[in-house]
């Protein structure tokens, strides 16, 4: 038996005008378990609140029903009121007779009748309410950032500067990401290295940043505030604690590998640093091109290393890190355009993709900044083909967003560095950033030829061997054209990292159709994810340029900070729990939960819910065939009882 108090608010005339409030209170008094029922002008006012608190004590109430405005308005107010009177805040029920009754009817009969039904539902529900307490957990103050491109670097620095310890995990042997491959950045044409390398150095020097390069996350346990992450340190075969970065080894090395950094345009040594400004400035051995690993003999590097840093016996090792929040900034890949055979990439040496061209422009690149083709010649005519594989229903529907601008940048740089004719084949020119339209206008003045039409095909010229023919329809003149050029640059779709599924699985992230990580809400929670405490920044969330990436990184850092800045945090109280005695082990809950809160205990053959991950939506409870899941505050009994009460009158 419960002892329920019902408090009916007039809300001035807002309610009282179309609901007979005193009649409602009298009706409430007749309902079983209702010990006291009153009406009052403004229940939310101080005297109203005091009245509730007084009655809780006087009548020893164990449930309170406030019949007033929407719970979205004053539920919290009244929760505090009853809590201050010694009742658990979840023993409150709000009956919304303002927004749902008095304001939407002009008939006082109807209004009063409906209010009675709603109130009756609340009484049925209130009887079954249970006190709930939110769990308070300790928060680990450290943060992990996955991916050390410009997004990860920026986020890490920001957090480190607030005094938080940051683990920056990078799977390559250097930090820097794609931005470090670029020569110039649009639209200002400032030097990429000039703005990035100081930041890379800051990371290296920062006392709060623990830089974990050549590392991959292998396991994520725990939940917001308390992640327990295992990282694999891949074997470098060079003991970085001993290496003094003299790089003598790299000079002597006879091994030949393909430079990933230079987009396979040139070779590199087997022991190498990817590029001169790499951070850390310490080499690794690529097992696949090392003579010793391949043939069992050589070890020249070992001989020249005075620090005795070479360690052919080195194994992968595992590091365990505990953090309170994680920022995922894993960036992107360019779509592999080889399958789009019509463009001849990989078949004709004159066809390049965008990142290769970035390297051609870079003074630290394979051609030392000179634009020469694979055959060593300077191109006389160049076609830049936009939207290769993006905005294309057959491949990727999305717009890769930066290609228009970098294609303009390429055109400018081609003009600057060669005397070639430059053609842009585009569908639409998208220049919607700050200074972008101006940049486009500038290029229009630079004698670059713009052809509005998507490049359809690249073939080899039969008349002039070595030359390429770009076929396209100029949609302005509606003419089909065949343009002979020396060099073709493809602007391929920006796609998620090849291993995005592993990252999504590890951190329980959802992905969109293309595989980009899903934000919790596209507008009001663009950096949070469905996994509490995990944030995303940069292109892993969707194609974007450097300014947007940096802005996101700063935002994600701030988001992460809101978690780790406190030493304790309160968890949602209205979470779901499993009654193991009823669990049939079907794992439906595990299959549907977007937060990964339920997990199957294979030993006990029942599901268990990690309350720290649960958001209380109740989906698991409704897919549970054996009703084993109790969605607190919205239990099956509570909902069924409320329905019964609502339907009685």
């Amino acid at each position: 038996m419960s002892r329920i108090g019902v408090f009916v608010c007039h809300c001035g005339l807002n309610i009282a005008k179309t609901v007979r409030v005193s009649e409602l209170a009298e009706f409430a008094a007749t309902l079983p378990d209702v010990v006291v029922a009153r009406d009052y002008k403004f229940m939310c006012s101080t005297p109203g609140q005091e009245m509730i608190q007084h009655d809780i004590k006087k009548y020893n109430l164990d449930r309170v029903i406030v019949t007033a405005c929407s719970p979205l308005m004053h539920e919290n107010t009244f929760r505090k009121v009853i809590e201050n009177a010694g009742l658990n805040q979840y023993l409150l029920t709000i009956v919304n007779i303002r927004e749902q009754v008095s304001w939407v009817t002009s008939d006082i009969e109807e209004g009063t009748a409906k209010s009675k039904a709603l109130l009756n539902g609340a009484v049925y529900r209130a009887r079954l309410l249970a006190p709930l307490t939110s769990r308070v957990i300790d928060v680990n103050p450290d943060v992990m950032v996955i991916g050390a491109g410009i997004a990860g670097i920026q986020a890490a620095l920001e957090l480190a500067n607030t005094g938080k310890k940051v683990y920056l995990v990078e799977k390559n042997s250097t930090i820097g990401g794609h931005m470090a491959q670029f020569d110039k950045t649009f639209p200002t044409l400032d030097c990429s290295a000039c703005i990035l390398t100081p930041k890379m150095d800051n990371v290296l020097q920062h006392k709060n940043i623990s830089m974990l390069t050549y590392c991959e996350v292998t396991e994520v346990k725990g939940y917001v505030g308390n992640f327990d992450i295992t990282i694999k340190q891949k074997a470098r075969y060079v003991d970085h604690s001993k290496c003094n970065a003299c790089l003598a080894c790299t000079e002597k090395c006879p091994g030949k590998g393909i430079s990933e950094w230079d987009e396979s345009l040139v070779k590199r040594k087997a022991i190498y640093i990817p590029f001169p400004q790499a951070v850390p400035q310490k080499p690794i051995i690529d097992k696949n091109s090392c003579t010793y690993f391949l043939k069992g003999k050589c070890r020249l590097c070992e001989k020249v290393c005075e620090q005795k840093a070479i360690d052919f016996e080195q194994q992968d090792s595992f590091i365990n890190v505990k953090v309170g929040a994680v920022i995922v900034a894993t960036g992107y890949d360019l779509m592999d355009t080889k399958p789009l055979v019509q463009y001849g990439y990989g078949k004709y040496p004159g066809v390049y993709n965008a990142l290769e061209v970035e390297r051609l422009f870079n003074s630290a690149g394979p051609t030392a900044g000179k634009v020469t083709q694979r055959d060593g010649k300077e191109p006389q005519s160049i076609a830049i083909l936009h939207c290769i594989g993006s905005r294309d229903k057959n491949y990727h529907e999305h717009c890769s967003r930066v290609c228009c601008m970098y294609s303009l940048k390429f055109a400018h740089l081609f003009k600057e560095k060669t005397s070639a004719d430059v053609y842009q084949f585009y569908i639409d020119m998208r220049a919607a950033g700050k200074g972008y339209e101006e940049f486009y206008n500038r290029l229009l003045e630079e004698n670059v030829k713009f052809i509005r039409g998507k490049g359809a095909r690249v073939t080899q010229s039969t008349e002039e061997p070595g030359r390429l023919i770009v076929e396209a329809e100029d949609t302005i003149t509606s003419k089909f054209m065949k343009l002979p050029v020396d060099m073709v640059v493809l602007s391929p779709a920006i796609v998620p990292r090849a291993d995005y599924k592993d990252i999504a699985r590890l951190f329980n992230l959802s992905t969109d159709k293309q595989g980009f990580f899903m934000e919790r809400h596209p507008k009001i929670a663009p950096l949070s994810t469905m996994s509490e405490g995990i944030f995303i920044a940069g292109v892993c969330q969707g194609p974007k340029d450097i300014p947007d990436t940096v802005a996101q990184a700063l935002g994600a850092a701030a988001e992460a900070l809101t978690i780790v800045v406190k030493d304790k945090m309160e968890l949602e109280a209205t979470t779901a729990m499993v009654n193991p005695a009823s669990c049939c082990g079907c794992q439906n809950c595990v299959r549907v939960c977007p937060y990964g809160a339920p997990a199957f205990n294979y030993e006990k053959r029942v599901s268990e819910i990690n309350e720290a991950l649960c958001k209380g939506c109740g989906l698991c409870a409704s897919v549970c065939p054996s009703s084993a899941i109790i969605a607190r505050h919205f239990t099956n009994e509570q909902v069924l009882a409320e329905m019964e009460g609502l339907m009685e009158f």
Partner: protein
Amino acid sequence: MTEFKKIEENLKTEATRLLKEGLVTVVLAYGKGFDENHPMPYAAKTIADVENIVFNEYCNYNMARYLVRYPQGTKIAIAVKAADSRAVIQLIQEEKVKRENLVILGIPVQGMKNPKTGEIIDSKTTCGMYNPVLYDLLLGEEVHGAKSASPYDVLAEYEKMDKEARWEFWKKEFDKCIRCYACRKACPMCYCDPCFIDQSKPKWADKAPQSPGNMMYHLTRFHHLAGRCIDCGECSRACPVDIPLYLFHKKVAKECEEMFNQAAGMSIEDKPVLVDFRVEDSDKILE
């Protein structure tokens, strides 16, 4: 030798081999009952048990129902007919059993009979397939019969019924229910323990065999089996008062196939449709 006898021999041979080589600890097949016309579901655990294995036209049982009775990890050989194999697939999807722990002994359709009516069990009361979908060994010749009528053809008559008539039909049927729960117990997909209907918190329905509780039990059970029912028809054959549950299950299965483009128990890679979604799902299905 009749095809039944041949399959019985093959069952015995394989059961003996599997048990002897220690590949499985139990063979779920069919055994002798109190007389020849009453075979039983049977679990052979020793080579001596194999003697009791039989196979005849009344061995209609879906042995998949018994899989969940054995502890996880038990190596089990199971005899399956077409629909039964779909139950096994569905149970694998739902991780109630692991594929690697099963040796699936497939039995092509042989004209099983409903023991109560003596009628051949065909696409009217089952999925009407000829051969198991998944098996390790096929114990008889694969059957290449004429493409049987759609298992859903039987529904036409009920679909075109006037709504009121259909309500009267089902109400009468459900009013017959004595709540013995043989339907859920015969069902390979009904493995909940406890079943929602047995619970007191929440109490979904009265325990008494009367209309509201009967309705709640059956309608909810249809929903629980939506997209999971593999149309073996065992629920109806188990029913002591002959409620044509198979009809309702078929209808729900048909709707699910139409809405979600996936039939139950056809691939171990699938995910049960009601704990899955596609962003492209249309709101039309709600009309």
